[in-house]
């Protein structure tokens, strides 16, 4: 999500290179996946607890709880509007992209951006580890690094 936020603020930043790691490419899909996974979590609650909040329930303007985080309605709308597309200054920025599994959709998105961009030195790297970003059962698990930190550091420092 941080990568998507960065990409969508590039027009206001003076940077020559960005390093993205598993960016949210489509905010609306991301929010839909969060909601679906939160619903799955609630269906798996073993004890009947009539008090737990259901997504979307509550007074207008209330917050929405999704997989352990609480969002305002405005925040959900803003996040749903995020996209990683060629735009403005991003065309001239050198792009380094680290994609973990499933990597294929990310690689396709990277290639589209690289084609539309004017910068040299763009590259994408795949590390086939599933970080399970949207799995509530794994959100608080610790995934071994397996080269992710080293790959990101290289993308930041390489010339």
């Amino acid at each position, binding site marked *: 999500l941080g990568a998507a936020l960065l990409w969508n603020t590039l027009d206001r930043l003076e940077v020559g290179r960005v390093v993205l790691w598993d960016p949210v490419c489509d905010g609306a899909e991301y929010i839909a996946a969060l909601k679906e996974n939160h619903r799955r979590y609630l*269906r798996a609650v073993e004890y009947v607890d009539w008090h737990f909040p259901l997504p979307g329930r509550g007074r207008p303007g209330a917050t929405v709880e999704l997989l352990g985080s609480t969002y305002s309605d405005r925040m959900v709308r803003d996040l749903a509007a995020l996209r990683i597309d060629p735009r403005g200054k991003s065309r001239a920025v050198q792009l380094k992209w680290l994609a973990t599994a499933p990597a294929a959709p990310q690689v396709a998105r990277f290639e589209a951006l690289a084609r539309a961009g004017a910068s040299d030195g763009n590259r994408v790297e795949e590390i086939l580890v599933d970080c399970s970003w949207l799995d509530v059962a794994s959100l*608080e698990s*610790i995934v071994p690094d397996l080269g992710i930190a080293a790959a990101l550091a290289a993308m930041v420092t390489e010339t």
Partner: protein
Amino acid sequence: MKESCCQFGEDRHLAGIMTEAVDGGKGTVILVNAGLIPKRGPFRLYAELARRLSRAGFSTLRFDLGGIGDSLRNSAGQPLKTRTELEIRAALDYVEGRYGPANLVLGGLCSGAEDSFRFAEIDSRVTGVVMIDSFGYPMPGWAWRNFLHRAVRRSRRALGLYHPYPHPKVSAPVGSQKGKPLVSYEYMSHAESSRILQKLVNRGTRVHFIYTGGASGVFNHESQLKAMFAGIDFRDLVTLDHFPHMDHTQVLAEHRRTLVESITGRLTA
């Protein structure tokens, strides 16, 4: 409310966040990592607890043990138990130097609970321990309650009201350890926990047990605590809150709020 980063310990290798009491100094709570989860706690439970306790008059230090979060791993040659002991002692020394020795409480979830409990035995400065989902030992009554729970769950599943969630992937994804568990945690033996609890009660240390539904494999009724330690007179020093509807890491905000209020209520009682 004032929060600040701090570093302490040998070579200042341990990193923490101090949340100052808003009003008064009723004591200081030190929160120990839940497993490998950094000092914010699972789904920010520790951060929310520290801020609530601040309003109730307690300062809180939540810090990372060596090798977790922002803390560097030091004393790498020492066994884990020894390192944990040294690092919790460093945290106590730090808050004692900052606020004085009054009312030092240790707490944590899961391994953080047991690390706190184990350390309290050897350091008489600790005046209270808060333990969320620590050790549990099935006693007579646990088995039929568990059977009943499973029967209800099976019925709910048959009616389409319950869909089990897949277990977390805590196994190594690649390499020679592929598929093997990354973390293997063994809860404290009954002999050890009985010895420590007896010692703490004798010393007048308050011990607050909290069990969630995440511990139902070993603990599923309030009466079980007394049965687990039948030979120990709790002397109003041992308290228990049981929240069977919560999961182990409190994904839902309402569950975290309940837990935070439970701890705050017991500490301020």
